[in-house]
């Protein structure tokens, strides 16, 4: 069938299967219908719930402003789909174009979208992870359980890992006067995502709000009582913290195991795809009928030297899903690239933290507005002489300006005068990121692949 006729047929009566019924899957489905896809649409999800929003689970829910089981995502339109919820996909037959399900069923497709996302990395010592009172926070079920325990008034909460989720949980506990201890392997919170300069400000936030913050330490073990309830955490500096509630916030693992042996280029860092969201097979050849979107995708980005990026960002899930859905039903000349500028937010201790670009690529940072001591500032990150990212603490309205600077490759150090620039902000300083081969709590951006500009490769074994 000629390409043009094929796409017409596909739009009219093709079969599209979406694996992953969360934010990316839902927005892709809506885009498909909005763009005139009239064929059959099947939504497969391993959780038994309609697509729901996750960011409120570590913020509004723990603050008591939202019920954990009521974060269902609003619909932009009716998607007229067949829902297979509570059923995980367990395999993919690329040649036969079929997805295998946990219940033994097989679903055929003409176009497949993989949006299986990530899951929380559990506490690695299995027996200790099983103790009553040890939690992770990723899904709605996790949030319901954690919420219940927090309401019961624990003596102390112990958070492992001071990334965004860990810090947000600590903040919510302090808001409700619950004693909380946070243990972080790096020297400050948020270091993996924002570097040591900004991390030092985050540490002050913890201290000022009465968090017992322990940095530069590892948790060596969790101790249970004879009836199997957690009662203490042991740290590498020899200290012991008594606790009855532990939240493990060690970042996320990509849900790609179900694709093992399928022939797709899928692994612990995600599923490689081109800028149009088409998945690569393991030989590096692009597929024509399998697409990827959201946290599980790794794609090359022109603004960042074509490095493969996988982004655990809410906005990326939406934008990439829209691009993937459009491209799935479009002829090659009508396809569009996914060139979203990475952006995320966090809210903790009453401070609005937002960022654009990829801070963790930055070598240096300049405080171009406000000041670190006031905890109200904009920090601009530089990489090889240009602006690569910006972060704001309670200064969000400036970020759009810096987004343009990133998009246009503006020079760094920043030479133009800015509003509210202090003498301390005139000089660039090292952004102070830890060695990326040493895992901390797991950054939300993973730089993988290599930068062609480097022209050399150093193999660093992953401890993933």
């Amino acid at each position, binding site marked *: 069938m000629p390409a043009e006729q094929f796409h017409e047929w596909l739009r009219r009566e093709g079969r599209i299967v979406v694996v992953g019924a969360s934010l990316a899957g839902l927005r892709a489905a809506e885009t498909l219908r909005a763009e005139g896809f009239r064929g059959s649409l099947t939504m497969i999800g391993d959780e038994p719930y309609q697509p729901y*929003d996750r*960011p*409120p689970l570590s*913020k*509004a829910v723990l*603050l008591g*402003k*939202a*019920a954990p089981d*009521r*974060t*269902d*995502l*609003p*619909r*932009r*339109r*009716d998607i007229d789909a067949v829902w297979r919820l509570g059923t995980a996909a367990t395999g993919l037959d690329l040649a036969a174009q079929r997805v295998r399900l946990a219940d033994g069923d097989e679903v055929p497709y003409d176009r497949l979208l993989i949006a299986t996302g990530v899951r929380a990395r559990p506490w690695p010592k299995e027996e200790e992870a099983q103790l009553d009172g040890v939690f992770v926070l990723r899904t709605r079920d996790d949030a319901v359980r954690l919420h219940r325990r927090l309401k019961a008034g624990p003596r102390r909460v112990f958070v492992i890992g001071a990334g965004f989720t860990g810090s947000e949980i600590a903040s919510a506990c302090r808001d409700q006067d619950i004693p909380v201890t946070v243990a972080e392997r790096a020297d400050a919170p948020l270091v993996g995502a924002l570097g040591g300069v900004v991390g030092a400000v985050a540490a002050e936030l913890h201290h000022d709000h009465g968090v017992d913050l322990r940095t530069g330490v590892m948790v060596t073990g969790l101790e249970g009582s004879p009836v199997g309830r957690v009662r203490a955490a042991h740290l590498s500096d020899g200290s012991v913290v008594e606790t009855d509630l532990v939240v493990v916030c060690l970042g996320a693992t990509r849900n790609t195991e179900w694709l093992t042996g399928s022939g797709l280029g899928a692994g612990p860092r995600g599923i490689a795809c081109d800028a149009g969201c088409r998945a690569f097979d393991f030989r590096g050849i692009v597929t024509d009928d399998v697409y990827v979107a959201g946290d599980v995708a790794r794609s090359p980005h022109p603004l960042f030297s074509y490095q493969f990026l996988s982004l655990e960002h*809410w*906005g990326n899930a*939406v*934008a990439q899903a*829209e691009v993937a859905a459009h491209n799935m039903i479009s002829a090659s000349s009508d396809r569009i690239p996914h060139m*979203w*500028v990475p*952006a*995320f*937010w966090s*809210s903790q*201790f*009453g*401070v*609005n933290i*937002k960022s654009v670009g990829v801070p963790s690529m930055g070598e240096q940072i300049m405080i171009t507005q406000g000041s670190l001591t006031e905890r*109200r500032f904009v920090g601009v990150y530089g990489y090889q002489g240009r602006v690569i990212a910006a972060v704001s603490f*309670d200064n*969000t*309205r400036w970020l759009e300006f810096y987004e343009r600077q990133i998009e246009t490759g503006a020079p760094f150090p920043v030479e133009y005068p800015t509003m509210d620039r202090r003498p301390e902000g005139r000089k660039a300083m090292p952004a102070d990121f830890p060695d990326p081969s040493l895992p901390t709590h797991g950054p939300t951006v993973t730089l993988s692949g290599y930068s062609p500009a480097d022209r050399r490769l150093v193999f660093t074994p992953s401890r993933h």
Partner: protein
Amino acid sequence: MRLVVDLNRCQGYAQCAFLAPDVFTMHGEESLVYSPWADDEQREKVARAVAACPVQAITADGLDGPGEPAAAAGQGAPDAR
């Protein structure tokens, strides 16, 4: 009524917190905390908040009545992010 705020877009203008304080509140200077689910009696207030948001960051469904997916702010823009 289900709702979601695109907090990448949100710039803390607090119009929603003023118009529908039972659903949207400010936490600190510019952080927005909102309830992703609102009772039907909040419908009119939420609709006003959706319309008033200067950056069109709020998406809600059921604004026209129970069970009906309604058009939402901020969608359809070709460069929506």
